[in-house]
């Protein structure tokens, strides 16, 4: 009986250790840049209020961003972006929900750079698409920073306009830089 008890206790301890290891890193001040420069005029914006969380054990990761939070150097461009292209009053948010597939390869207790493979659903302009991209997890003093770069075809997300493909690039480059707190 005692043996069983000890075994049970050990089993439960193991279980709880495993579960406890699920740490959630989060930030509300991540950065996303995009560049949609087609021809001469620079069309680029920044958003410094990216809301992101990821679980250390599961690799589950979320990025959420308010479309209206994108800042352009040209205010009129920002208005056009919101009103004519992104329709941000109808679709206020863009979101990525997915997984860091190789999360196990990242050692959060050791400083360094690790390659990370992302896979999941990207929702922009109300349209969901499966995407995958690779980026980097940089660990410094136990705090991870995720850096990534990928591109998005506007047509895939139903974003239309006569300037797309000319002044506005059909494929938009997106850069992510999120520094997480514990």
């Amino acid at each position, binding site marked *: 009986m005692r043996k069983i008890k000890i075994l049970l206790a050990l089993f439960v301890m193991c279980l709880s250790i495993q579960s406890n290891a699920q740490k959630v890193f989060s930030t509300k001040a991540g950065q996303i840049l995009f560049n949609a420069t087609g021809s001469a005029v620079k069309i680029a914006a920044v958003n410094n209020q990216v809301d992101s969380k990821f*679980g250390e054990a*599961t690799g589950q990761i979320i990025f959420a961003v308010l479309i*209206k939070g994108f800042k352009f150097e040209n205010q009129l461009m920002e208005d056009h972006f919101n009103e004519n292209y992104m329709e941000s*009053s109808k679709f206020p948010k863009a979101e990525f929900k997915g997984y860091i597939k190789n999360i196990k390869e990242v050692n959060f207790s050791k400083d360094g750079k690790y390659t990370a493979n992302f896979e999941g659903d990207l929702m922009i302009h109300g349209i969901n698409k499966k995407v995958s991209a690779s980026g980097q997890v940089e660990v410094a003093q136990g705090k991870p920073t995720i850096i990534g770069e990928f591109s998005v075809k506007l047509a895939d997300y139903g974003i239309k306009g006569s300037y797309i493909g000319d002044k506005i690039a059909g494929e938009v480059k997106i850069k992510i830089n999120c520094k997480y707190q514990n």
Partner: protein
Amino acid sequence: MQIKTLVFIVSTLLLGQQVNAQNVDLFAEEKGPISDITTSTFKSTRIVNGQSIENTGAGILDFRISHRFGALSQGSYSLFGLDQATMRIGLDYGITKRLMIGIGRSTYEKQYDGFVKLKIIQQQEGERSIPLGISYVGSSIYKTMKNPSTIYKPYASDRFSFAHQLLIASKINDYFSIQLSPTLVHYNLVDSAKIPNDFKSLGVSSRIRISKRVNITTEYFHRFDKLAGYYNPLSLGFDIETGGHVFQLHVSNSTGMTERTFINETTGSWGKGDLCFGFNIVRTFTIRKSKELRNVKW
């Protein structure tokens, strides 16, 4: 002994479950409503002549040229008013997101004007829901035209007039916005003792979006206190958005561009065909980049 074991197993199971609960499903987390401040209620800081609830962004300088031709009723001899022109050149600057200032010079009466516009309440949805926005505009107008009268030499203060406006605006949806502008105009000097110094009026303006880049605007001021011989101003305009500019074209029975002039001293009448063609052109300069845009590595 058996009961003890049972209790042990159950309690460890519970513990296990509790611990397991820490393994949160991040996807399932609910987010509260997001605060969303309404933008683009109007396309420009002016509707036609009057101020709209829009401000220039923080650190943005607008160079604005407003041009009004003469009345259509002048006939072919003056090429339907195109021979005549009044204009105002102005500079507007956004100090913060909510506060802007501007100065200008009009050919009419050789006026200088300056104004302050402050967003008091901003229309928003989400966390807090406010269906309308309220701004205050205070402007002063100084006329420098030499006074032909020799009977009385005016003081400098006599050349001033002031306008106070509340702008109450609501963007009903992406296609329609409306604004009410209760206005008080004060003249430091009027022509005779019988004429009051203060004039109340109410402006009603709207924007209708007809395509991605074209909006129709209307602007009407109803005067409660009237100067004899003048009409209520009614204007109809098109806001056309091109690359980096908003181009405003309009017809109006007014040729004035400062509050006191276009609200209280509109000489034209729609009924008599005194329609004047006019346009506003704005060139935007970024003087100070917003915090978000500084130190960005593109």
